[in-house]
């Protein structure tokens, strides 16, 4: 896999991947993200903030970031990946399943290309690896 890179969690992961020089081809590419805990830190932050501000004043724009697949959504928007969009959750198994699904989709001609991204999270940071399969 390419990388790894470490980025602060406020930075766009889509922009970071774009800066890596990867090229996403035709329409219909698949995205296969593997993560252990994406959205977890954001969920805690959203709830902490809601209790500090008051529920009626919580930040609505922060809520969608609490969803596990928020990063996959951001990557797809930045890179224009509009085919199957997966987020696998787990420790070691998630990357295995992401890679396996990408290979199956390529072999069955469901996608013309596949971007597999592994995201490990630690407080305030994301460690990212990626590979393009075609």
């Amino acid at each position, binding site marked *: 896999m390419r990388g790894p890179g470490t980025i602060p969690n406020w930075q766009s992961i889509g922009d970071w991947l774009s800066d890596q020089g990867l090229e996403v081809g035709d329409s219909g590419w698949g995205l296969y993200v593997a993560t252990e805990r994406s959205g977890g830190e954001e969920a805690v932050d959203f709830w*902490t903030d809601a209790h500090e501000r008051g529920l009626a004043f919580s930040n609505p724009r922060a809520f969608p970031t609490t969803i596990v*697949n928020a990063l996959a959504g951001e990557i797809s928007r930045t890179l224009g990946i509009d085919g199957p969009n997966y987020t696998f959750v787990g420790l070691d*198994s998630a990357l295995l399943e992401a890679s396996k699904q990408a290979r199956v989709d390529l072999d069955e001609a469901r996608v013309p290309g596949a971007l597999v991204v592994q995201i490990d999270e630690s407080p305030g940071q994301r460690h990212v690896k990626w590979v393009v399969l075609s």
Partner: protein
Amino acid sequence: MIVTGYGLTTALGNDPEQVFHRLISGQNAARPWDDLNDFPISIACRIDDPAYPVGAGRGRALALDAVNQALCSAGQLDGNGGVFVGSTMGESAGFEENALGGEHAISEIVASTFADHIADEVYPSARRVTYGTACAAGNYAIGNAAAAIRRGELDWAIAGGVEPFSKIAQLGFARLRAMTPDVCRPFDRNRRGMQVAEGAAFVFLESDARVRDRGAEPLARITGLGLSCDAFHPTAPRKDARGVVKAVRDAMAHSGASDVGWISAHGTGTGPSDAAEVLALGEVFSQIPPVSSIKGALGHAMGAAAAIEAVVAIMAMERNVIPANTNLEDPEFDLDFVLEPREIKVDRILSCAYGFGGLNSALVLERA
């Protein structure tokens, strides 16, 4: 890819017969909750059963209950098995408690805890796959479990979705102005939004050979899955519905079929999503079959929703009756909406589910 068992627990009941009966009789699970009085909206579709714990661990209990129902006639589990689970957030209450000083281990509250718990309880050597794919997650789990069996990787699989009640979601959707303050009315001219729900639903899938060898009763087949991404907006659908069109077309092509007898719509009751869904169905089908959404009765159980709808679809085929689009009084769109439960023999059903992040999914289920 044959379904031989199913189970579910929802705010309308905690077994399939009870839920289907209440759906057909027009009951609605939504009501206000005292512990949500400080929230912008206090109405939700929650399971009021002391058998399920409150707080972190609730999702695991809901999931295992539905799985055990699905395994009632599964026989001895052996060979290569898998557990495929979809969820949106995991044990949301665990994150809420950690924000207020709790110390739940992350491994016990992330979405993969559900597949791990199910596998540990029923078949520890099972392959464990967790889809964090928002409100489409149930279709991802069921469709991909069926595909893994079709490819010969597995003999059987437990597949579905689970979402314990999430106060984060109850607040977040309200703050996004996506929730109705009163009644959820999918496809109605006066629809005002969705209602947050909780639940779990699972099917037991087997290979044709395993079903034949043990003489099991086939209940339905999973024949098609289509997936796409709008790549457009974190929460809003594309107005041209291009992504939904692709997902539905791919599911139909995958199944080899050109028509269905009923469309179990995503139909959340939010303005843009319902409109995009109708537009997409018109693009794909020259004659749109009967359409209804059950979210007016059950609310939106997010990561569990598609799996709940898959179980209801199977039951509709078994019983030759399709549930109505609860609370639809003034349809905004000129479709054959199911306004009352309709007695009709349906051999193939399309079940649609979409989610945050621009996810679109469509699952085709057929009479066995």
